[in-house]
């Protein structure tokens, strides 16, 4: 009966062997399909003593196990047998008197289990590696995120600072609706509104800008996607209008397009501009009136001197006639001075209009005109000249003046030569007009460009002393400078530099 039971148990566990051993280590029961795999047969072992059927090495291996189990130990161990694994369990069997009469040995093929175990171990290792990699990745991402957050925070702080402390008014609105989302202190001060009054409203609601100007700005934005430095009339909370310089840009946050408007109060600037224009007009009127009021009596001085000459020359001796001539010449000179002074003053107020000038052309024209209108014997040499950005008529005036001077002051030489040349130095274009004339004493070079200053007498060389002052004024207006060098009786070089644009 018990044999049947054991057989049933053994057959219930595929890949297993149950055997029972008695005190002499005799196999008195062996059941199970694993026996074959283990390399034994039932007939081989049943009823035999282990020492008789097992090989010497094998018996030496199992003997300690037998001894243990018969000592009452219950134990289990795994064995690797070639390419398969078994689990062996040793259980002592006790009779009614609690005496060990037999040992039960169960051997189960656990190869599949072992394989599964191995697989799981491998998977585990793989998993751990994946986890480690993923963790490392996450750490990297985290680091990036943190540094981005830091940068964002810095940028936000920077923007906040700029926004809050900027002296120009800044307002941020949603482009589509025009609703103002934020405005800085300067904007509020500029427009006279409080923060609460402005947030959530549009500039249209608040009547901040003139209808016409609004249209103009819209046009500009549609065409260029931004607005730059547009002068418009804005209205403050009290409805007063003031001039403002407006710039606008847009930026995207997610899907929403926002506008950032920068408004700069230019009332002071406009006022200053107006005052300047008014002052200039006044000055123009003044100098015009002065010159004409001065000219009328001058006309009389000259005229009456002439009348005297015509009607009373018979009553005059040579001395008388000489005195009259002095009166006339002085009158003429005063006329020249008035003319030159007027020109000097007018030039000071004139706006220069820049364009690209071919200086070779300009010089050629000037020389041609001089040759036609002024008799002279000078040899005028024009070397290749650099082009400049400048006011054509003003620079024409400069060239005329300097070339005429060159001719005038070398007229007494036998072979007067006037040379016009240019060179480029750094970011300046330098033009030089040199002559081989009478030159001047470098000791007085600083007086050369002063108004009415001359280094020669009118008898030696005619002139009012305003010409060079005018030249200097013109060149200064171009952002350049003038200077001169000379040696007495050897000639002079007058140069002017104009910054290249």
């Amino acid at each position: 009966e018990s044999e049947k039971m054991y057989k049933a148990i053994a057959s219930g566990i595929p890949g297993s062997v149950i055997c029972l051993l008695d005190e002499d280590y005799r196999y008195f029961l062996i059941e199970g399909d694993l026996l074959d795999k283990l390399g034994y047969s039932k007939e081989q072992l049943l009823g035999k003593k282990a020492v008789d059927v097992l090989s010497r090495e094998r018996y030496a291996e199992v003997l300690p196990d037998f001894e243990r189990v018969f000592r009452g130990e219950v134990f289990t161990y795994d064995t690797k047998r070639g390419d398969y694994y078994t689990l062996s369990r040793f259980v002592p069997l006790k009779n009614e008197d609690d005496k060990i009469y037999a040992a039960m040995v169960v051997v189960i093929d656990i190869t599949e289990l072992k394989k599964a175990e191995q697989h799981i171990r491998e998977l585990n290792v793989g998993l751990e590696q994946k986890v480690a990699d993923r963790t490392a990745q996450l750490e990297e991402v985290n680091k990036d995120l943190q540094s981005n957050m830091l940068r964002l925070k810095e940028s936000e702080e920077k923007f906040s600072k700029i926004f809050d402390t900027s002296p120009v008014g800044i307002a941020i609105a949603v482009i589509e609706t025009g609703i103002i989302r934020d405005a800085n202190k300067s904007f509020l001060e500029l427009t006279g509104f409080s923060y609460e009054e402005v947030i959530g409203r549009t500039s249209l609601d608040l009547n901040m800008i003139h209808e016409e100007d609004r249209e103009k700005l819209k046009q500009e934005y549609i065409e260029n996607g931004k607005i730059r430095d547009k002068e418009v009339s804005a209205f403050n909370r009290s409805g007063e209008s003031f001039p403002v310089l407006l710039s606008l840009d847009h930026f995207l946050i997610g899907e929403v397009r926002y506008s950032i408007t920068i408004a700069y109060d230019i009332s002071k600037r406009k006022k200053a501009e107006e005052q300047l224009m008014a002052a200039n007009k006044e000055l123009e009127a003044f100098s015009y009136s002065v010159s004409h009021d001065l000219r009328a009596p001058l006309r009389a001085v000259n005229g009456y001197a002439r009348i005297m000459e015509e009607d009373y020359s018979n009553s005059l001796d040579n001395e008388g006639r000489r005195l009259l001539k002095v009166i006339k010449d002085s009158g003429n000179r005063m006329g020249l001075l008035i003319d030159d002074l007027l020109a000097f003053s007018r030039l000071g107020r004139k706006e220069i209009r820049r364009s690209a000038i071919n200086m070779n052309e300009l010089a050629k024209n000037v020389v041609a005109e001089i040759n036609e209108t002024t008799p002279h014997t000078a040899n005028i040499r024009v070397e290749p000249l650099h082009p400049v950005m400048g006011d054509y008529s003003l620079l024409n005036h400069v060239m005329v003046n300097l070339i005429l001077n060159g001719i005038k002051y070398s007229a007494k030489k036998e072979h007067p030569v006037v040379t016009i040349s240019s060179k480029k130095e750094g970011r300046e274009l330098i033009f030089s007009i040199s002559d081989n004339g009478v030159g001047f004493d470098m000791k007085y070079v600083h007086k050369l460009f002063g108004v009415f200053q001359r280094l020669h007498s009118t008898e030696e060389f005619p002139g009012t002393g305003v010409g060079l002052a005018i030249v200097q004024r013109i060149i200064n207006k171009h952002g350049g400078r003038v200077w001169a060098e000379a040696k007495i009786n050897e000639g002079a070089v007058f140069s002017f530099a104009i910054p290249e644009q």
Partner: protein
Amino acid sequence: MKNEEVEILMVEDNKQDAEMAIRALKKSHLVNNLIHLDDGARAIEFLFGTGEFAGRDTNKKPRLILLDLKMPKMDGIEVLRIIKQHELTKRIPVIVLTSSKESPDIDSCYSLGVNSYIVKPVDFDGFIKAINELGFYWMLLNQNAE
């Protein structure tokens, strides 16, 4: 103050300019009868036979009026306006002879119907030349209305 033909009425407040101009015109035999008045109000009185010139035969009109602009009391432009608006005087050629080169002045004068606008040359020679030339033109060449 004469009741005869006056060829030129010169309205000029600067005595020297007037003297020099008259001398030049006389010298070139362009005019024998010239009346010189030194302010606009007197000129109007002369033309319309009022005030100082009450009783003057206003049909005896000058052949030419030389008119300065910058004068005290009545301004030259005002005088021009009156002359050119009145039936009696509007056909008389008026030449503005002035030191003003200002566009607004020039524009106003032509708008009012001035016949010529001359800026007084600043130098004496030029001045005399201009007087002579305009004298020749307006007194000899130009055909007046009757």
